[in-house]
């Protein structure tokens, strides 16, 4: 019977071409949206690797001030640490967690080149963000006397750069002048939030004389409120006249950051929802028309021995065959994405999206064909034959 249905659809391919294109287009859009969803969902299911509750970001802008910046920043950090409400505080580059800023560079080890997000921090960041170390330790002031700049990397960076070796205490190169020594390895660090993929990350120790990185991450005690925030801002303004002082909560930044990911996904989802609804309505209409046109054939098949369920099965089978033609064309396009590593995504993401899109398309065409097919089965054979 399957062969018969393929033959029937193939012989009518001209008539069905628009329908095939419509289902193909729906599959491609669905594949795109599902890729986006699978990508974000997989990221969402992975922990971000650090704690952001009760962590504040104190952003200090030097504005017109150009004198003794490094010393003033150091004094500011010491002052912040002195408050009883503060558990820990750490200086950090402008790419603080959930911010829109990004600093990237690449490092080399044994001719293996890996690009990573760079974070410039002091010795306290792991305490502020409660970053658990898988291997080694966080860098300390004592490391600064060494020949190489101390760094901490994350697990995925270790895997990519050192393959099967341990990265601990290995020396890696950024450029001819800059060499790093890995002193510790953390598990994950998804600084852009839950929806960020687990990218390679590298934490480089800030020098005491650094004057460029004016962010201080502050871990406060639970229950610390806006009164402390006001006092902190006031004290900083007095201590650093002419500087810009701004406080933000990482918890709020995380929400904003995640909305930036969710909103486009929702927009795509709504657009594809409309498209799929149109496809479904189109299919439904075409099938209804088809059945009205093929009443004689339905009567004939009943006369030749088809049961009611056989007629339903035939019409459902025809739409599945038609969808299969569309999906074969769609798959030719879709499989290029994992083969050619488009957007540098995991093969798995594309394969899951392809599988899910195929399932959704079959569900949609089945739902659309179900009612007209049932209607076809209910047509009385004697009436159907007479109408022809």
């Amino acid at each position: 019977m399957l062969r018969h249905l393929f033959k029937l659809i193939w012989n009518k391919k001209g008539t069905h071409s628009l329908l095939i294109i419509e289902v193909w287009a729906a599959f491609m859009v669905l594949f795109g949206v599902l890729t986006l969803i699978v990508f974000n969902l997989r990221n969402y299911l992975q922990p971000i690797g650090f704690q952001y509750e009760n962590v504040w970001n104190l952003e200090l802008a030097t504005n017109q001030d150009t004198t003794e910046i490094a010393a003033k920043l150091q004094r500011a950090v010491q002052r912040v640490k002195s408050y009883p409400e503060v558990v820990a505080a750490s200086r950090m580059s402008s790419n603080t967690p959930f911010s829109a800023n990004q600093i990237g560079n690449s490092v080399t080890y044994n001719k293996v080149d890996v690009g990573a997000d760079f974070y410039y921090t002091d010795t306290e960041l792991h305490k502020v963000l409660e970053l658990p170390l898988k291997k080694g330790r966080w860098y300390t002031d004592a490391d600064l006397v060494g020949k190489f700049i101390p760094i901490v990397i994350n697990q995925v960076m270790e895997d990519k750069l050192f393959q099967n070796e341990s990265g601990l205490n290995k020396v890696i190169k950024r450029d001819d002048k800059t060499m790093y020594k890995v002193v510790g390895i953390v598990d994950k660090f998804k600084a852009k939030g839950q929806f960020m993929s687990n990218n390679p990350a590298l934490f480089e120790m800030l020098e005491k004389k650094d004057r460029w990185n004016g962010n201080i991450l502050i871990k406060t005690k639970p229950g610390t409120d806006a009164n402390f925030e006001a006092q902190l801002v006031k004290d900083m303004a007095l201590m650093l006249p002419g500087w810009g002082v701004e406080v933000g909560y990482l918890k709020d930044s995380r929400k904003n950051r995640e909305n930036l990911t969710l909103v486009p996904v929702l927009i795509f989802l709504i657009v594809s929802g409309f498209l799929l609804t149109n496809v479904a309505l189109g299919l439904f209409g075409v099938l209804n028309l088809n059945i009205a046109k093929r009443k004689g054939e339905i009567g004939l098949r009943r006369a030749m021995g088809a049961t009611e369920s056989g007629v339903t099965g035939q019409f459902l089978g025809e739409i599945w065959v038609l969808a299969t033609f569309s999906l074969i064309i769609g798959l030719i396009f879709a499989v290029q994405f994992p083969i050619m590593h488009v957007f540098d995504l995991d093969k798995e993401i594309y394969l899951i999206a392809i599988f899910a899109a195929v399932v959704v398309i079959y569900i949609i065409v089945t739902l659309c064909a179900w009612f007209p097919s049932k209607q076809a089965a209910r047509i009385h054979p004697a009436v159907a034959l007479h109408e022809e």
Partner: protein
Amino acid sequence: MVHGLSSMVKKQKRTTYQHAMIKLQNVEKVYRTSSIETLALNNINLDVKKGEFVSIMGPSGCGKSTLLNIIGLLDAPSKGHIEIDGSPVERYTDKHLAELRNRKLGFIFQSFHLINDLSVIDNVEIPLLYRNSSAKQRRDAAQEALEKVGLSNRMKHFPKQLSGGQKQRVAIARAIVGNPEIILADEPTGNLDSAMGNEILGILQKLNSNGTTIVMVTHDEAMAKKTDRLIRLFDGVQVS
């Protein structure tokens, strides 16, 4: 001489009739709408013996096709009793009726009812799709049936490429491909010229001479006279 031979064949056939292949008792068919009730068939009693060639005649709207549909299990009577090859069919399920239609009955229609998107051989194979036959069995049986109607050279053609007579021969091949014991023909020559009509009747007579029971609805008196028995209907009533 030919007439004499034909009578002899008829006499010989009559002696071979065994039991009623089709039996209708007090069959009535009423069509009801919200405002009107039409009695299409009234108290029909009919016995068609195995191997008999019966024709049904009557003016348009007298209930010929309704009777054929009821015999063919495509329509249910409002009242009465039907037996096909000795089995009462009133309590049969849809599945059982479909199986009976597939195994016992072959249909030929005035308007051929060929599927234009399928080739001649694929059209002929249709009844076998509803049986557990392999693709090869289907193909072989369809080829054999087309050879019987003299269309083995048109297997790959599509219905639109055939003349009316050829289309009806394809329909006959489709009706006989499953070796049914009964063939029901609803005005099989109605859309054909007289020469082509005689050719089709010749094929049906040949099938009948091989033991197939045939019930044919026709408007053509001359055609009807060439069959074993003529049943006349008028306003849903059997008049002879």
